[in-house]
């Protein structure tokens, strides 16, 4: 009875830890990982009819007749010439262009026909802005883009420099996404794509393409990842090689000048990468940066010259706008990704080819103008802040396409005013230049009205459909601002009927009717719309770019408390072991101790108490509304259920940790402890001491390394280093004891081999080498054959040989280990079968790709799809067979010890899984698995060294060592072994080619053996590839450490089932503790570094991998514990009979 109870309690303990960890990670993640749901809706032309901006009489649907559109157009803006844009040649009056209008016009009237967008990656704001606007000395990299400064100074009405402010994460991909969608891409955009980064949300490029405009792209190939099929012409250049400073830029320069003279595009995008790469490699201060900037200066000068040449009336670039912008800034070291001002501040330069005739009223200018500087020329220049968020809306408004559905930006006043076509033509206004402004204001007000409506529509849609909506109070506030903006007198065309039909009267009479009162009301309306849009953007920003610290703190506290639980459980297990060994009668005391392992009743009581109390308080608060104390307000304001959950968890932890002893128990406890202590100290070897100190040091160093981003990058090497240290200690120990020296040396060699296995060229997938070289260019047959032979040799050496020796190893050991006949035969049949299927699969794939031999389609399909599927099937069957036969068939081998039984189960399970794992790992798989198996064997063998050594020493001293071994293995040695085990596991993760980044995931592994995509099946394969070898296998194999110890100590207690399961539980607790410590440290580092440059590049992915890994490990510990303990209990019952 007692044994069964103990096992149940241990399993419950592991479940409890799993639960604690998952809640901790859930809390931390929801505070830290900002998520956003991508909505699949798109804006269409006809949408705008639903907006209130056209008044109740408007029916602006896609099927509307051309007359109606014309009338509509006249109603709103009262300006035919403005209405009929975007034909091939602008017409002064809207004569016969109605058909054209119908197809081209949408929400706004196009103000520019063509846009040239030059993106300079990592353009710092101080590269562009005049150095006089910065305090301190002028740095060498300032004032190098002279052409931009000069243009903005001399042509004040048609050229401007803006301070372009990005939102973190400031990486190119996220920024391009933000620029084109007008949203705030977060770290995790929950969307419908699996791996591919293509934008599925509505975006500017998509809208342009839908509107029939042609977009040309040249430069950074990130654009191609985001928009695989949108561009009419694209010249992508590889952006991956950071060391290459010139290829992309030269390519863009080569392509852009001919393109400028062509007519078949509306938007031309040129993306230069040089500055970013120079920054990454040499830093901003290097002379190369100055060189690059000077090069850009020349290029932009030439572009401007070409554009100006063609910008006369009727010219190609009459209504063209040139935009030079950066996607993000960079620090002086060239890093970017974070949210410091250096990284988020970049520049936007806009040059309109036609000078806009009017000036904005000061009311609107001052609202956005922040930096005002005196320039040498003596004219004051104003640099406006322009959030990148607003880029998509502004460009959509200027180009006359619908605003992207998910855009939360607003149309920028000054950039919109910069385009000359947004102003009425001077010919219409005549000499009444003061009438320009009211007309412009009315147009702009209309645009803003649509903008507000679009943003409101998005916020409503997002709240309705996303996983985590906006906070209700703030959302309501923003909605009220919208209502205010809508009720303010902006329906000028309904309020002032005289403005409505202005096209019939003369221009003069029309403009005379604009009173100053109307202008004020227009400005008011614009302002209230702007206020709404700003508030909406802020709401979105708090939702998607700000961490929620309380949640993070709760998560961290829970993680740390789970470490305490691990520690307490370990020490209780140690004491229980001693008691079992020392006390002759295993009755009441042991029973009490057992309860302490997992005091379920006490914890339930504590949890229930807290839950009831919290519920009562909450209920009181809910019912008695007048209870308005600050505490009650805080509780009702925050998330009540979260606070209650956290309280319950903490209560359970406290209940677990706090021991409740009777007086007599304490005394007996102390006496037993005293005895245990003396035994412990006498058997405490110097070696164990050193080993456990080294283990603590190694965990500590590993954990410290996680603080630095460069350590996270090179974690694989760090782990190899620590493992080598441990290997040296084993070697020393082995030399001391005079045995197992070869194993220690082999361990060191294998460690180095594992570390460098990824480096060898030969391990690259032969298929990819062959296919890339054969498809790219024509290869003569003889060469191809020769190549094929070398490839075959390489494949033979790297895959078949290790695979063969692995199978031989397994089968040979299986004969001695697997005592169950059925199990042995099952293994002996399935392993060679699975491995030969692997070989067939790989070889046929190679043959197919090298195209030397013609292979029939059926064979090809068989080896490509059926072979891997068969391997999965065989693995699964062996696994299930093992589990069934182990649990049912224990009767057959009552004679075998617990140890042998355990080893039998572990080995056959590992052998079963190995086929799948090797297949998923690819051609490196066999080598790595072989190395890993040998390394683990060395490690296990070396575990016995210390005991041998100790026994030898005691024999020398003439001590009677019967008593000492009763102690089982000390905590220190288990901890040391668990640390080494963990290091091997982490090393496996890295040497199998994984990295803690999302682009490091092996997406191809998900499609081994399958062509179609099913989320769960492919997800499971990907998870098996990512976590299989480094998380799941180590957990399954962990009890081998106990069995290794059981070999070394010919200990009578190991024949006791409950003792054995206690030992297994101790090993699992140690391993879990090590993993928890590392994950907790990662979490702390992520919290500390959440404003670090690389937080989204490195720390956050590392956290995600660690947290997921911890959960996987916890889950598999529970499963493995249930399986192994059930083995023991069944066996124990059989023995009793």
């Amino acid at each position, binding site marked *: 009875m007692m044994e069964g109870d103990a096992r149940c309690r241990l399993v419950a303990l592991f479940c409890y830890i799993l639960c604690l960890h998952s809640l901790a990670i859930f809390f931390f993640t929801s505070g830290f990982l900002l998520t956003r749901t991508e909505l699949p809706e798109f804006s269409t032309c006809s949408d705008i009819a639903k907006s209130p901006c056209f008044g109740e009489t408007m029916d602006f649907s896609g099927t509307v007749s051309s007359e109606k559109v014309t009338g509509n157009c006249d109603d709103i803006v009262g300006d035919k010439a403005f209405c009929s844009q975007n034909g091939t040649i602008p017409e002064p009056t809207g004569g016969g262009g109605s058909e054209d209008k119908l197809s081209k016009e949408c929400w706004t009237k196009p103000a520019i026909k063509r846009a040239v967008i030059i993106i300079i990656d990592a353009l710092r704001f101080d590269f562009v802005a005049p150095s006089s606007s910065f305090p301190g000395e002028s740095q060498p990299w300032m004032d190098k883009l002279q052409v931009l400064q000069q243009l903005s100074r001399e042509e004040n009405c048609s050229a401007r420099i803006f301070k372009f402010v990005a939102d973190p994460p400031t990486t190119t991909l996220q920024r391009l996404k933000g620029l084109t969608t007008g949203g705030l891409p977060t770290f995790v955009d929950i969307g419908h794509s699996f791996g591919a980064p293509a934008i599925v949300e509505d975006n500017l490029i998509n809208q342009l393409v839908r509107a029939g405009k042609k977009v040309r792209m040249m430069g950074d190939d990130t654009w191609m990842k985001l928009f695989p099929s949108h561009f009419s012409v694209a010249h992508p250049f590889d952006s991956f090689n950071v060391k290459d400073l010139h290829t992309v830029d030269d390519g863009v320069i080569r392509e852009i000048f001919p393109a400028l003279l062509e007519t078949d595009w509306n938007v031309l995008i040129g993306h230069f990468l040089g500055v970013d790469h120079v920054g990454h490699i040499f830093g901003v201060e290097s002379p190369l940066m100055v060189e690059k900037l000077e090069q850009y200066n020349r290029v932009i000068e030439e572009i401007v010259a070409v554009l100006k040449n063609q910008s006369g009336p009727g010219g190609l670039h009459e209504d063209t706008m040139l935009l030079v912008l950066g996607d993000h800034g960079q620090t002086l*070291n060239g*890093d970017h990704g974070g949210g410091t001002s250096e990284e988020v501040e970049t520049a936007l330069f806009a040059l309109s080819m036609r000078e806009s005739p009017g000036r904005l009223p000061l009311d609107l200018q001052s609202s956005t103008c922040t930096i005002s500087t005196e320039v040498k020329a003596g004219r004051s220049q104003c640099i406006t802040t322009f959030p990148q968020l607003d880029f998509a809306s502004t460009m959509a408004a200027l180009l006359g396409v619908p605003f992207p559905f998910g855009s939360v930006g607003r149309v920028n006043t000054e950039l919109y005013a910069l385009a000359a076509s947004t102003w009425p033509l001077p010919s219409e206004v005549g000499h009444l230049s003061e009438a320009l402004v009211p007309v412009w204001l009315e147009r702009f007000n209309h645009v803003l009205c649509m903008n507000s409506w679009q943003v409101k529509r998005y916020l409503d849609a997002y709240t309705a459909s996303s996983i985590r909506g906006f906070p209700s109070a703030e959302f309501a506030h923003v909605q009220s601002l919208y209502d205010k903006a809508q009720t303010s007198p902006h329906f000028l065309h309904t309020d002032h009927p005289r403005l409505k039909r202005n096209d019939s009267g003369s221009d003069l009479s029309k403009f005379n009717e604009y009173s100053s009162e109307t202008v004020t009301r227009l400005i008011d309306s614009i302002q209230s719309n702007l206020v709404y849009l700003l508030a909406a953007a802020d709401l979105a920003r708090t939702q998607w770019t700000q961490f929620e610290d309380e949640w993070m703190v709760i998560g961290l506290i829970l993680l740390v408390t789970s470490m305490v639980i691990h520690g307490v459980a370990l020490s209780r297990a140690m004491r229980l072991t001693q008691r079992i060994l020392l006390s002759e009668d295993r009755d009441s005391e042991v029973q009490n101790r057992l309860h302490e392992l997992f005091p379920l009743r006490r914890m339930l009581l504590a949890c229930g108490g807290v839950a009831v109390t919290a519920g009562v308080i909450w209920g009181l608060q809910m019912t008695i509304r007048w209870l308005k104390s600050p505490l009650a307000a805080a509780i009702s304001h925050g998330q009540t259920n979260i606070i209650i959950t956290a309280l319950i968890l903490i209560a359970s932890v406290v209940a677990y940790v706090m021991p409740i002893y009777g007086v007599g128990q304490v005394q007996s406890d102390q006496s037993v402890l005293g005895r245990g202590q003396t035994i412990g100290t006498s058997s405490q070897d110097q070696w164990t001491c050193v080993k456990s100190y080294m283990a603590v040091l190694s965990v500590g*160093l590993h954990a410290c*390394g996680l603080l*630095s*981003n*460069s*350590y996270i*990058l*090179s974690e694989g*090497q*760090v782990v*190899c*280093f620590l493992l*080598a*240290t441990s*290997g*040296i200690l084993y070697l*020393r120990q082995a*030399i*001391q004891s005079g045995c197992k020296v070869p194993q220690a040396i082999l361990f*060191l*060699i294998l*460690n*180095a081999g594992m*570390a*460098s296995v990824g*480096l060898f060229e030969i391990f690259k997938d032969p298929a990819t080498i062959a296919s890339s070289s054969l498809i790219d260019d024509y290869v003569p047959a003889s060469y191809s054959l020769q190549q094929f032979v070398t490839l075959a040799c390489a494949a033979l050496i790297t895959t078949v040989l290790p695979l063969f020796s692995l199978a031989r190893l397994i089968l040979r050991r299986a004969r001695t280990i697997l005592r169950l006949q059925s199990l042995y035969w099952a293994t002996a049949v399935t392993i060679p079968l699975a491995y030969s299927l692997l070989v067939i699969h790989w070889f046929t794939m190679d043959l197919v790709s090298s195209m030397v031999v013609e292979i029939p389609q059926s064979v090809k399909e068989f080896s490509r799809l059926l072979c891997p599927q068969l391997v999965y099937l065989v693995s699964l069957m062996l696994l299930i067979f093992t589990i069934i036969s182990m649990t049912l068939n224990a009767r057959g081998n009552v004679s075998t010890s617990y140890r042998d039984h355990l080893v039998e189960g572990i080995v056959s399970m590992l052998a079963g899984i190995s086929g799948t794992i090797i297949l998923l790992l690819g051609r490196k798989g066999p080598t790595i698995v072989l190395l890993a198996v040998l390394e683990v064997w060395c490690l296990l063998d070396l575990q016995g060294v210390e005991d041998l050594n100790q026994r030898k020493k005691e024999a020398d001293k003439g001590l009677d060592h019967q008593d000492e071994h009763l102690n089982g293995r000390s905590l220190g040695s288990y901890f040391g072994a668990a640390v080494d085990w963990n290091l091997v596991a982490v090393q496996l993760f890295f040497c199998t080619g994984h990295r803690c980044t999302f682009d490091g995931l092996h997406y191809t592994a998900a499609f081994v053996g399958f062509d179609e995509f099913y989320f769960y099946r492919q997800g499971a394969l990907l998870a098996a590839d990512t976590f299989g070898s480094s998380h799941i296998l180590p957990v399954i194999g962990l009890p081998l450490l106990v069995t290794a110890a059981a070999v070394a100590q010919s200990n009578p207690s190991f024949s006791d089932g409950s003792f054995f399961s206690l030992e297994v539980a101790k090993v699992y607790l140690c391993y879990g503790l090590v993993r928890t410590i590392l994950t907790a440290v990662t979490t702390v580092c992520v919290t500390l570094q959440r404003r670090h440059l690389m937080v989204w590049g490195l720390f956050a992915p590392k956290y995600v991998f660690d947290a997921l890994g911890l959960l996987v490990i916890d889950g598999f510990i529970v499963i493995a514990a249930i399986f192994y303990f059930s083995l023991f209990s069944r066996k124990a019952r059989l023995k009793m009979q």
Partner: protein
Amino acid sequence: MADQQKAEVQDDGFLSRDPGAIALLSLQGLCGVALVVGVKTVPAYYGLNLIAHPVAAIRCALALTLPTVVVAYTLLYIFSSRPRPVWRCIGSGLLSLPLGTVVIALLALAFGAPTSLQYASRTLHWAFLMSVLVVLPAAIVLGSSWPDWQRIFAFTRPRGGLERAICIPAHGALIGAWVGAFPMPLDWERPWQVAVTNRQGISDLSAVFAFSVFFHFFRF
């Protein structure tokens, strides 16, 4: 030297004269100074440094350290009047160097030194310097007696001053190299990283020096 004649009876009954604290300290100090001068001062004089020109700097260090160590430990051996001729001492010491270099280079590989040929020369130079500091003194004093080597390097149980003078600097150099290697992955982009490691110039070798000197003064 008055202490020179002081004899010590070891527990294995082997009679050996210890060279005495002053002699040990001064000769050890000489080795340490030679190492520092060789690693830092001389390369700095020629405008080299360990990070930019590792091979040249280590050659400088070797040019100074190798003769100093040979002379110092031979002198110590002579003072302690062990029963082997001096030329055999020096011979076994010099013979041990290539072997030690290979072993230490292999160890470096086990600890994750780059395997590509491009770095082979650097690794070998470093291993040679390490073997001058670790293997050479032991080879001069102990010759080829395996139990003695085992006692010093596996059990860390030196007997008498002379063996301590081998054991402690050797362990200091090894531990120093270990400690010095650990901060290598740092990319020096944060102030605390620079503070922790006292500027980029620190590498495993200066750590070797620091630990050697520390252990000298700690012990004697």
